[in-house]
């Protein structure tokens, strides 16, 4: 009798743990949230295509940093042959100066903590 109570208690604990995402989202009530990126730029296109930037931007920024800091090479030749200045502040943030409405949208949503701002100053708009 007491052993079956223990087994049922164990199973209930297991079910609670395994269904954590389900009830956590119900309790939190924010799971339907999807990030919205606001682009406030005059430019028609980014340095690379939207699809490329979407999945490879962190790699690109890392390559840029290595190129600038270690090789003193600031010229980036994009896949379409166009030349760009490798600079987070002067190139990226020129268009995407709205960190909270652009960068943070996906980064917060996916719990990503980029190390950009360890060295770089957070753009003006974020200062309070």
């Amino acid at each position, binding site marked *: 009798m007491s*052993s*079956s109570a223990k*087994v049922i208690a*164990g*199973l209930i604990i*297991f*079910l609670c743990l*395994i269904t*954590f*995402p*389900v009830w*956590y*989202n*119900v309790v*939190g009530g*924010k*799971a*339907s*949230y*999807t*990030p919205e990126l606001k682009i406030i730029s005059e430019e028609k296109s980014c340095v690379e295509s939207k699809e490329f930037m*979407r*999945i*490879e931007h*962190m*790699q690109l*920024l*890392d390559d840029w940093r290595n190129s600038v800091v270690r090789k003193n090479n600031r010229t980036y030749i994009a896949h379409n042959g166009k030349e760009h200045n490798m600079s987070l502040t002067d190139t990226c943030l020129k268009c995407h100066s709205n960190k909270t409405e652009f960068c943070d949208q*996906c980064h917060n*949503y*996916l*719990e*990503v*903590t980029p*190390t950009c701002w360890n060295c770089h100053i957070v753009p003006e708009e974020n200062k309070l």
Partner: protein
Amino acid sequence: MGLWFSLFSIVILVLLVVGGVEVFSWDSLFGVLIPYAAFVIFLIGIIYRVGKWAKTPVPFRIPTTCGQHKSHPWIKANNLESPYNSLGVIGRMALEVLFFRSLFRNTRVELMDGPRLVYGGTKWLWAAGLAFHWSFLFIVIRHLRFFTEPVPFFVNLLEGMDGLFEISVPTFYLTDIVIISAVTYLFLRRVVIPQLRYISLAADYFPLFLILSIAITGVLMRHFYKVDILSVKELATGLSTLNPVTPEGVGLLFYIHLFLVSILLMYLPFSKLMHMGGVFLSPTRNMANNNRMVRHVNPWNYPVKVHTYEEYEDDFRVKMKNAGLPVEKE
């Protein structure tokens, strides 16, 4: 034999997804239906197996012990090695589940020159097993960032620990490296050690290959052939809020990963991986060694019908009196 069968099974499973997603674009089958079905089978399977074990009668207490049994107060009892109360059982079980204490005692017999028989400890299986299980747990918890919104604080904490060294962008997780090395070791020991190879079956190789493929596809998706994790999270939260969606262009690699995880979930309750629940239901581990303190009644003891002398006398009192036999009750 079992090795090749398992390897080809994995290849066929992967080809199934490639065909299904690339040729027929059955995105909702692989992204929604199979994961849901797998999860339901997983839950029902676990409950079924645990229920079946729980219903099995245990005729007497059979804890395995390797410490001093509790007896006289002046003999020091070892509650962890020979638990005499629930606290001891819980303590021993916790150490078993969290640190695989009994596997730590794994020994090997070797015949040295002389001839001399030598018993030595071997900790490799224990170390690789522990590394593998803990990494797996960390990885599962880390994946909550895809299934929950807002992401709970402990997921972030764990990610910070896991990506401590910030190697490459995105950060290499230490657990990814550990799990792949540990599973590779667990596989190689089955192939390299002849005795182990002899006793290894498809049921041993298949879970190893399955978990290794899951880990490898995961690492590939994160570092080499990146997928759009925004869509991944949309799909994952869709699943966890019972409001499934299949966003465009999630990527084939993701579907392979998800399908293999679904296979793992479905396979788990009906395979040796069920040791996940079984460890808690092992009579040799979950009972206290208190045979001399507590009476343990065999649950299948047949209720024997007895006819006492008093009842006998009640039945035959008159006849006994008439025959002049002494009776206890008048």
